[in-house]
Structures are given as structure tokens and as C-alpha cells.
């Protein structure tokens, strides 16, 4: 799975990340894992979902590289994969920069026009 993700283009990887993030349960799972590695059974507990249902969500997060799963004996645990999260944040920051710039431009235009009206 991981090898597959690495052979993909950055855009394709980003698609996987955002598909994974576009779900409330998966965002909550990710938030919990971001506090530190956790056992799958502990992660599943607060959701009132079956273990297979949670496993499906975890598999989608894992496919996007957002978590790394490991098995020790009978214990399955999950840890945060930080790098894809950073790419997602970088992608979102482009929108932020766009809007910041656009609002700067709006403020300049509107304030100049309002000043002109007040002065007339």
C-alpha cells in the first residue's frame, strides 16, 4: 500500500488525503491519533461503531498515508503519518493566500471609493 502511494503523482496523493479528510469520523480518528499512537480497539470504543466499520475508516486513512498501522502480537495500533497532513495544509494555505489577497484588494478599492464619496 505504502509503495503504491509513493509511486503516485503529488496531485493523486493529495486526492487521497482529501478524500480521507472529507469524513467526520475519520477526522475525529485522526485527531485522536495525533495525540499519540493508539490501539485500534481503544480508537473504536467512543464511536459506537463495529470494529470492521472503524477498520474501513482506518484503511482509508492508511491508504492516504495519514496513519501508519502496526501489529505487535494480537495488538493493532495506529500512529499519525505527518507528511501527507503537511501537504494538505500547504494546499489549503494557497486558498488562504488567495482570499487574503482578494480581501486586501477589496478593502483598498472600497475604502478609496468611500473616501471619495465622503470628500465630494
Amino acid at each position, binding site marked *: 500500500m505504502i509503495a503504491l502511494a509513493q509511486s503516485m503523482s503529488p496531485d493523486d496523493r493529495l486526492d487521497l488525503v482529501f478524500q480521507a479528510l472529507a469524513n467526520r469520523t475519520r477526522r475525529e480518528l485522526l485527531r485522536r491519533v495525533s495525540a499519540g499512537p493508539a490501539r485500534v480497539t481503544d480508537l473504536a470504543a467512543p464511536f459506537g461503531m463495529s470494529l470492521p466499520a472503524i477498520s474501513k475508516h482506518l484503511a482509508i486513512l492508511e491508504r492516504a498515508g495519514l496513519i501508519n498501522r502496526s501489529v505487535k502480537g494480537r495488538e493493532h495500533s495506529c500512529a499519525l503519518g505527518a507528511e501527507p497532513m503537511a501537504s494538505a495544509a500547504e494546499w489549503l494555505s494557497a486558498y488562504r493566500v*488567495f*482570499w487574503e489577497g482578494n*480581501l486586501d484588494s*477589496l478593502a483598498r478599492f472600497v475604502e478609496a471609493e468611500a473616501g471619495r464619496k465622503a470628500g465630494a
Partner: protein
Amino acid sequence: MDATRISLSRIIRAPRQFVFEAWTTPSLLMKWWGPEGVRCTAAEVDLREGGEYRIANQHGDGSVTWISGVFERVRPPEELVYSWNIGMPGADGSRVKVEFRSHEEGTELILVHERLAAGVRDMHLAGWTGCLDGLEAMAEAG
């Protein structure tokens, strides 16, 4: 943290009605809209719930990217909610909410752009990042 939305706010020293009109009137919108390297060459706004808007963004090489969507909520001069698609109209896009609040210095504008995960492909078409340098220069010249 919600990784699929951004929000920002800005104090603008002008009356709320005026800011709202600048945002929604095509002839005014065309005067301020667009980052460096992009000119707003056309804008159409059907300002009612269910009405559509579209904004033409012409790049330096002459190509045009349309931003379009449908108004979900129109409350002049307080609030707008609309869908946002870059490139292909009707794509399963993101959503923009703009609030215009009266403020002692003028207007507080609060902008939330959400469901960005759904619009991820739009962003690739737009290539905003390449157009952002010098944004301020253009706005000042305008």
C-alpha cells in the same frame, strides 16, 4: 481542527451597504477582483437564492478560468452563501459564506470557505499559487 475549511476576517473602513454592493455588483466586482496576473474580464451576478454567478479570470497567457456557483442564501447587506466551482460549472464544489457585520470602524467581513476537500480538483485547474505574487501592486494600480 477542520482540515477542509479556511476562515478569515477583515475590518474594512466603509459602510456595510457599500462593501456588500462591491461584492455583488458586476461592474464594481470587476474593479477589484483578481490576483496579480489575472484580470477579471467579465462578471455576472443573479443576486437571489437559486440565482447563479460567474466570474471570468483571464490569465497572462490569455486563457480564462471561470469561477461559478449558485447562491444558497442572499441576505443583503448581511450575508451570502454560495457554491464555488473553478473551471467546470456544476462540479461538486466547495462553499463560500460571507458575513458583513456593522463595526465601529466600518464593516467586519467574515469569510468561510468550506468543503474544500470536495473542490480539490478545482484547485489544480486554477493554479492560483502561480498568480499571487504582486497582488498588492495590481490592487494599488487599480
